[in-house]
């Protein structure tokens, strides 16, 4: 085993000495490629922020100003002064927060039962739940609308909250993670008379941070960013989510691009902040959910 680590070390270090004699620039030539390319990826977002602080006069002339002459917060004032916009933000926040919390709770409970308990029908249920992941949302959206209508929930936040309460993804990701934990830890506490729930809460969950944060991150991302379902389930603008509000906002305020862009910045900000603050967890959650499950 020590042989491989010794071997691995020079293999990692190798590229630098090989490249050194050929190097003529004071930096790696790859920067010449990566700098413009990554700027290309960032440019639309930079432009989003810049245009949100431009005055309408700067935006509405052709060619438009490519750099704001000063910071004009008119767009933001307009958006935040709009009676509806803060409300949409609150709606989005409520729906996403409930979805994250309930996916963690119900996902953990369900995942734990599937991982650690034996009961009649568990295998059938598990296969059925797994199979539902293959059903595309477009197939279920019309009947889901009809169900919500019968429950009298159309046009309420309830219609947005109920379908996102728990996803099979959360249940299975957590189940897989719980299975990877050593049973012995729980058994000791269990034999000492700890209830299942206490074992889950005191022993299993604290060990499951990576899986829990994956579920939280991905749930927040999908609920906050969703447009299709709110578009179907909500008609009245007091119940709009931010995404839905933004689409109508754009139509009504075509000339007020600064305001539309300010609204867009506000819509993007929570996800962007979450990403920048927890970049590592974010990327890990994307790759782990994608590859290892």
């Amino acid at each position, binding site marked *: 085993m020590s042989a491989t680590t010794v*071997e691995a070390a020079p293999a990692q270090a190798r590229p630098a000495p090989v490249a050194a004699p050929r190097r003529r620039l004071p930096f790696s030539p790859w920067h010449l490629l990566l700098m413009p390319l990554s700027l290309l990826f960032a440019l639309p977002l930079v432009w989003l922020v810049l245009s949100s602080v431009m005055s309408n006069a700067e935006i509405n002339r052709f060619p438009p100003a490519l750099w704001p002459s000063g910071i004009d917060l008119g767009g933001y004032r307009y958006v935040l002064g709009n009676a509806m916009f803060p409300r949409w933000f609150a709606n989005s926040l409520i729906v996403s927060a409930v979805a994250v919390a309930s996916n963690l709770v119900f996902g953990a409970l369900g995942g734990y039962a599937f991982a650690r308990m034996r009961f009649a029908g*568990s295998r059938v249920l598990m296969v059925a*739940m797994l199979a539902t992941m293959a059903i595309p949302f*477009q*197939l279920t959206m019309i009947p889901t609308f009809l169900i919500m209508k019968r429950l009298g929930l159309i046009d309420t936040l309830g219609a947005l909250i109920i379908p996102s309460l728990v996803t099979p993804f959360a249940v299975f990701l957590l189940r897989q993670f719980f299975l990877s934990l050593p049973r012995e830890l729980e058994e000791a506490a269990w034999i000492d008379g700890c209830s299942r729930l206490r074992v889950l809460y005191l022993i299993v969950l604290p060990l499951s941070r990576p899986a829990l944060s994956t579920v939280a991150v991905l749930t927040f991302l999908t609920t906050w960013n969703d*447009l299709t379902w709110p578009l179907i389930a909500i008609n009245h603008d007091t119940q709009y989510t931010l995404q839905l509000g933004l689409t109508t906002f754009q139509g009504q305020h075509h000339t007020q691009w600064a305001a539309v862009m300010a609204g867009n910045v506000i819509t993007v900000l929570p996800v962007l902040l979450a990403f920048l603050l927890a970049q590592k967890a974010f990327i890990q959650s994307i790759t782990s959910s994608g590859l290892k499950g």
Partner: protein
Amino acid sequence: MSSLPAPLTLSDHDRRHRTLRRRRRRETATAWAYILPAVLVVLGLSIVPFVWSLLLSFRADDLVTPSRWVGVDNYDALTQDPHFSQAVRNTLLYTALYVPLSMALGLFLALVLNRRIKLVGLYRTLIFVPFVISATAQGVLFSFILDPEFGAANSVLHALGISRQGFLTDPGQALLVLVAISVWSGTGFCVVIYLAALQDVPPSLLEAARLDGAGRWQLLRHVVMPTLTPVSLFLVLWQTINALQVFDLVYVTTKGGPLGSTTVIVYFVWEQAFKNFTAGYGAAAAYVLALALLAIGVASRLVRGRRPAGAVLVEGGAK
């Protein structure tokens, strides 16, 4: 358990048997209490609608008045509906362009970003950030940038001496512009997945190949690429499923126009069900899409054999 050798006293056996049974019953009850919310929501809002949708697709339904059975008429009508065939064509073209472009660019960037150079973390972040932005926000932003009259894109083209473009308002360009926006936002995902896979290429294998005199290209072609094959297959599946389900971006930017040039299947389904109130017809179209997705899933399963990851993946795309 009950078939254990009979204990000495019958009463003891009975008691133990009963405790065991009681404990097991309690375990079952607890387990059900734990999974009930998940079962109710997941099965209630996917298996029930799954069947309901099938029934719906054989009916004429306007979501208000009672529906009536029409058999396969909806499916018949779909085959003759030029709007539907256009939607299918648009979706396939979008998928055929988006999947290889995002993957090729993703692989290329991942190979470059896998090097140990300065600022590599910053580059990765810049390339990945568009991925977390909602399709709605992307759509609103690009409607602004690509506005044919006031947009920044045309002013840049103007400065370069290129005439004004219609972008999303030009039937010949709109779908291609949507592909470009999707590549902009979706490449970061491919980069991240490929980067993760590149970490798994065994360094000893690379070293061995290098000692055998393999050049850069040979290393890439014969050592790196083969280890990336499973991940590439995953990405083909993942990106294709997502591409076939594209909706939000279309809704925000073009609403299927101009002249139906960006009407994709999901947009068609949505339009039929919630705009024209022909829910049965929309459900039939949705079933056609679902069958296509199912076929892709089954085909990939056959190609890849048994890999547990596959099932978990479909979910993210479903929302």
